[in-house]
């Protein structure tokens, strides 16, 4: 794909358009697969937030809403900024791709930094499940289930963020070498799909981890 709009000799495609459409469809299929990956987590949440409602809600109340809400705002903005890169890519404007890409990646890193701070605080407060778990009482078990879920879900989402930031930086590097043109910008588009998907997952995790059951 490094040689831009031309098809290389081994390519199984008729035309560049055919190839690009195929790549985008392939990405959507991969995202469908990813949706099922997070689907398993959502199932856990759906069940325990009903069968262990008390402990679950107690866990929700102990999350840091300020950081969570700030992170949501950051991620919304990051996704919007990267979508600008996609638009710039469509026009073949490599400079804007670089600028928007770096902006989106920086916001992503901010998200991770805040998340890391939140984790650190939670570790200090002994909210990581285990024998020294901070919460006691009849609902402590459910709260531990919540925090197992919380740490795994945020870890998995964080890993997706790391991969996404890596992909964005890769796009920026290519764009600096003026790799994209109005005729060929599929990688920018595909990374955009992935980044928006990571954003989308957070839009569902945020209410599940911070809001529902809080009041």
């Amino acid at each position, binding site marked *: 794909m490094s040689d831009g709009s031309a098809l290389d000799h081994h390519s199984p495609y008729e035309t560049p358009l055919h190839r690009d*459409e195929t790549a*985008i*469809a392939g*990405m*959507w*299929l991969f*995202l*469908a*697969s990813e*949706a*099922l990956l997070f*689907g*398993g987590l*959502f*199932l856990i949440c*759906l*069940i325990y937030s*009903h*069968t262990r409602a008390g402990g679950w809600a107690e866990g929700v109340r102990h999350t840091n809403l300020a950081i969570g*809400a700030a992170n*949501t*705002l950051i991620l*919304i*903005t990051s*996704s*919007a900024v990267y*979508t*600008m890169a996609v*638009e710039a890519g469509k026009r073949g404007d490599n400079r804007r791709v670089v600028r928007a890409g770096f902006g989106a990646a920086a916001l992503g890193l901010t998200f991770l930094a805040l998340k890391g701070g939140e984790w650190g605080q939670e570790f200090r407060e002994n909210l990581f499940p285990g024998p020294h778990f901070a919460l006691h009482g009849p609902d402590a078990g459910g709260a531990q289930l919540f925090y197992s879920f919380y740490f795994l879900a945020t870890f998995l989402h964080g890993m997706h963020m790391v991969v996404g930031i890596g992909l964005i930086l890769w796009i920026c590097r290519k764009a600096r070498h003026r790799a994209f043109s109005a005729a060929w910008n599929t990688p920018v588009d595909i990374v*955009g*799909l992935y980044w*928006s*998907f990571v*954003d*989308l997952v957070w*839009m*569902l995790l*945020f*209410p599940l981890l*911070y*809001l*529902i*059951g*809080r*009041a």
Partner: protein
Amino acid sequence: MARIAACWGMLVLLLAAELVAARMGSGIGVGVLAVLMVLVIVLGFMQILRAPPLAIIFALGGLFWLTILLALGSLDSFTRTTVPVHAAALPGPTAE
């Protein structure tokens, strides 16, 4: 550019509404708003309607199977009657 700004604005408003709904204790309200946010992202940022038709099929397929997972996966837990064992009861009740 205007599209992106509009979507961003909508998402921020929805986030604010979500926080208000959470304060009021309306779990359903929060859920509806979250789904709206997802829709804004899928339609506005990912532009699914302008993707190849195949992409729409794949997305709907993923959604369908996700529904199966959630519906049938939770069927058992929501229809089960569980008799929990309390730690004190483990050695066995002496009088029945």
